[in-house]
């Protein structure tokens, strides 16, 4: 059904987006927790930095990534020299671009959920002998599951559709960084390839829909447990 090229782009996209979402899940949770629960000087700044990728055109974000993590960037040099890691022009780099672009969406959704968690339940857990950490894992986390799912789906969709930052930072290398949107771009650049482009469009949409339906299903399950008349 799928041509080898489509298949390559699809599997790469899934890998890239999956890794991107997986990689930001924990930091995103942590960041949301910090922003939702603590007050400290510089919080607004931190909040601003988190939102940065959302505010700038993706190409600019990609450019900033390239400048800082590329061979000429200090961070990139350091990474290359100490860890032997080079991110630009690799699928890991594409995942990074997707992760950076998706991060604020994840953080925002989780934070919104966190802010509506009933702190009284956390207090109850503490008096039952649960440490802060256990309370987070056993009470807070299950309660914000809908937020995590929403954030996760937004992040996945965003990173699945990520184009500007990816092509700028990770380039458009077949089999390595040519994800669905980049393949789509190449087709759109070629007159007469509209049908092939439309196919890729449909593939993207189907993948995203599957992720969406799965997350809805999970969220519904989580919510059904929480619903009811009494807290």
């Amino acid at each position, binding site marked *: 059904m799928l041509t080898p090229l489509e298949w390559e782009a699809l599997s790469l996209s899934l890998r890239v987006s999956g890794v991107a979402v997986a990689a930001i899940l924990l930091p995103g949770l942590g960041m949301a927790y910090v922003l939702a629960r603590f007050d400290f000087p510089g919080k607004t700044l931190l909040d601003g930095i988190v939102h940065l990728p959302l505010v700038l055109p993706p190409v600019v974000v990609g450019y900033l990534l390239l400048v800082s993590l590329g061979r000429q960037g200090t961070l990139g040099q350091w990474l290359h020299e100490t860890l032997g890691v080079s991110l630009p022009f690799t699928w890991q780099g594409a995942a990074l671009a997707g992760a950076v672009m998706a991060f604020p969406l994840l953080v925002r959704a989780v934070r919104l959920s966190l802010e509506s968690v009933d702190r*009284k*339940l956390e*207090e*109850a*857990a*503490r*008096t*039952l*002998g*649960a*440490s*802060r950490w*256990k*309370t987070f894992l*056993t*009470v807070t986390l*299950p*309660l914000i599951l809908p937020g995590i799912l929403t954030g996760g789906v937004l992040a996945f969709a965003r990173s699945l559709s990520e184009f500007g930052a990816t092509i700028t930072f990770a380039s458009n290398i077949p089999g390595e960084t040519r994800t669905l949107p980049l393949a789509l771009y190449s087709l759109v650049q070629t007159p007469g390839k509209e049908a092939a482009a439309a196919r890729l469009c449909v593939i993207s949409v189907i993948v995203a829909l599957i992720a969406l339906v799965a997350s809805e299903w999970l969220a519904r399950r*989580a919510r059904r*447990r*929480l*619903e*009811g*008349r*009494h*807290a």
Partner: protein
Amino acid sequence: MLEAKVSQRLGDFTLDTSLAVPAEGVTALFGRSGSGKSSLIRLIAGLGVPDSGSIRLGDTWLVDTQRRRWVPPHRRQLGVVFQEARLFPHYSVRGNLRYGMPRAARADFDDLVELLGIGHLLSRTPGLLSGGEARRVAIGRALLSRPRMLLMDEPLTGLDGVRKQELLHYIRRLARDTGVPILFVSHDTREIGALADRVALIEEGRVMASGPVDEMFARLDLGPRTGHFEASSLLEARIVAHDEALCLTRLALPGMPEGEMLSVARLEGRVGDAVRLRLRARDVGVTSTRTPPMPDVDCLPATLREIGDETHGPFVEVMLDVGGQALRARLTREAVSQMGLHTGQALQARLRSVTISRHDVIVM
């Protein structure tokens, strides 16, 4: 032994008080709505930090603002039943009950579930429980966490009479058998009468008075607050016989002549066991002579020790000596004057068995 000496500002309200809860038995925290009961419980549980002061539980300093000590709530091992149920909506009832349950408490699980009547709810989600059901689960959850001390904020509201009685009984047994001290908030003088050994009276953020429950209930100056009506005395007695046919247990009081007995509803204990009896002052009358025996009235020879305020109100409280123990009786002022009562007078204390509920007698 819990000793708290704390102050905390909460908006316009200031909590600034000291409270001592003995290492054993049940202490009731009694006070009007908004007097700071829940706020005090929060501080003890570690859900807030006092602006200044300290809280000590046994040898452990839970809080000491001067020495900058603060034990986080989960290390305090205090079981809290909150004023609202606060069940975890994402766990089943069973999951809620097990949440803080140590391995050692597993054996109690089934019994407690049965007592609370929540066996059929175990796999339900708390969201749709009825008010009373949720409360029972919350009580069970706190009890199963095997705390060093229980803090209960109006735990029995929303429970029906029968269940409430059962729970009162259970909590009292718990306090006695396991030695876990209990601090519980209640508005209900009957509940307090049935359960508490001591009462602390809190008003506008300060504990105004505290002491044994009978003394506190009897203190005329606290009358309007404690509900004078429930004033009672505690007496030691001994089981001398069971009457299986009539379902009665006969009790003898120390220092009483042979044959003078009180009858109460059949108790669990064995002949010879010591018991503690709570007798409400209003249920005890006096006559000057031993009137012709009445079928369900027990008489005890007594000496009049003291007569309360004779100048106000319709009722007068008098203190009797029955074989060396203090027994409170309440009479109308009319009766006191008609009988010409005076201290030192020999009297008969009169008492009807039916007024002594099962919960007024504790087999020691």
